[in-house]
Structures are given as C-alpha cells and as structure tokens.
C-alpha cells in the first residue's frame, strides 16, 4: 500500500506541477470547472477568496486609525 501511495503521489506531482506552470503563464484568465465532478474545487476557491478578502478588510480597518493621525 505504501508503494502505491508513493506511486499516486508521483502521478499527482506531475499533474500539479504542470498546472502550476500553466497558471504562471496567465494565458487562461478564467478556467471552466466541471461542477458535477468538481464542486468541492469551487467550494475551496470560495473559502480561499473569503480568507484573502477578510484579511484585506482587517488590514483596511487597522489602517484607518493611523490615517487620522
């Protein structure tokens, strides 16, 4: 089972490294998810967006008092 897990990991490594290279090219601004099979990916994207934008909101709130000075 351990050998198989290693094998699966190597198969995924090839996938994600190609995806990262493609993303870095910025050639495709919007992808097309297959939501019947990939709705967890969509849900994950929403959490990422929420986490990053709430951090921005917090940063803006922190910045306000110093702007008054």
């Amino acid at each position, binding site marked *: *089972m*351990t*050998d*198989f*897990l290693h*094998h*699966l*990991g190597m*198969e*995924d*490594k*090839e*996938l*994600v*490294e190609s*995806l*990262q290279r493609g*993303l*870095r090219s910025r050639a495709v601004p919007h992808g097309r998810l*297959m939501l*019947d*099979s*990939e*709705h*967890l*990916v969509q*849900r*994950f*994207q929403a*959490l*990422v967006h929420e*986490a990053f934008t709430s951090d921005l909101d917090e940063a803006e709130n922190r910045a306000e008092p110093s702007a008054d000075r």
Partner: protein
Amino acid sequence: MVVVRDREGELRALINVCRHRAAVVARGSGNAKALQCLYHWTYRLDGSLRAAPRSEREADFDPCDLGLAAARVAVWGPLVFVNSDAGAEPFEETFAPLLDLDLEDHEPSDFRLHSRTEWQIEANWKVLSKNYLECYHCPLAHPGFGRMIKVDPEGYVNRAEGQFFLSRTPLKESILASDLPPGVPYDPCGSISHGTFVLLWPHTTLNLLPGMPSIYVLGFSRRAPSAPAAFGISSSFPGLKSGSSQR
C-alpha cells in the same frame, strides 16, 4: 510552536518563542523536564517561567508575566492540532464531521505513527488542495486507482460542510467477487472497504485506502513566502487491530 505532554499526561501547545529576546526555545523532539532557551531562561512544561538568571537584580521582575503563551490544542486519534488564535472556533466545532468519520471497525485511537516522509513539489498549496478535491482526473491520471475503486461520478461521493471536505468511494464489486484482476496495485481486501479522503481547510488531508487499516496524512505547506514550491509531509498511521476479513 512546541507541543509538550507533562508527567500528569496534560497535553499543551506553547508559543515556542522566548519572552526575553525572542529566541526559539525548544528545538527538535524528545523528553525533557523543562524547556531551556539557548540564551538563558528556562520554562516549565506548563509554559511558566522557572528560572531567569540575575532576575533578583531587576526591579519589578515578575516571572508570572513571562511564561510562554499557550495555543489551543485538539486531539483526534494520533493527531494533535494546534491553533495560535485564542479566539478561533473550537476544532471540534469547525471539524465536527471528522468526529463522525466512518472508520468502519476502527477508532481513531487504534492508529499510531509509523513513518514520515517529505515531498517537494513545484506547485503551491492551493493547487495541491484543489487537485486533491476532485477525482475527475482519476480515470486518466491514476489508472491503478481506477482498477481498484469506483472513480465514476455514480460511485464517488463528494461532500463539503463548512471547512470540512469529504470524498468517499467503495471498492469495485469485481474486486470483492474474484481473485485480484491484473493491474490492481495491491491487495485491497481487508477491514477497510472504502477509499476515504478528507481535507481539513486549508491544506491537511487524511486518507484511508481499502485494505489494511491505515491513515495516511498529507499536509501541504509553503516553504517560503514567495515561492510556489509546497512540500507535503506525509505520515502513515497503521491501525493496531487487523481486520478479521483480511486475506
């Protein structure tokens, strides 16, 4: 962060940065009666300051104000989860579905650390997590997987509850019915009959494959703030009990 268990068995996570001049206090792993910073100060395992040389020469030196701060701790089987945010929702609420996870005949406490490996991958943690969250790529990219478990949309369950993600799929009937067909990567018949894949937001995964009871934990981290390279730390936790139906 340092995670310690004291003589009484109490488990704690402490912010592992000295309250004197912010050196890292504990290094490595092992057994210790106290945590001593390489510079000077010593802390008890509950985080309180035990000794600070020359503190008697200082005015207003109160050791009570100078302990290592505690972080939140949660335990699931062999895994310890820590959170430095004192205001965060309890782990047991955020990841409530994990407490009900179907481990078939096993309990989380059946599992013990077996081994640990690190992977270096030139992709960031978001790419890794998203690749993990779908099996649309399985038929083409993981042929061995597809010969063993159901990777078609009918067999494969994908569910999200808050920050908890679950994918689950059974062994193929053809595997259970006969001798192992060619191309099946290992003997998947044992006390675990499903593939179970859990992601705890943002990048911790727990994996069970059909066959002998084993949890494989894979976390995706960022090695440097600007680098896209993530490294996976995978640990496997075999179950103590072996299934009666194992062949």
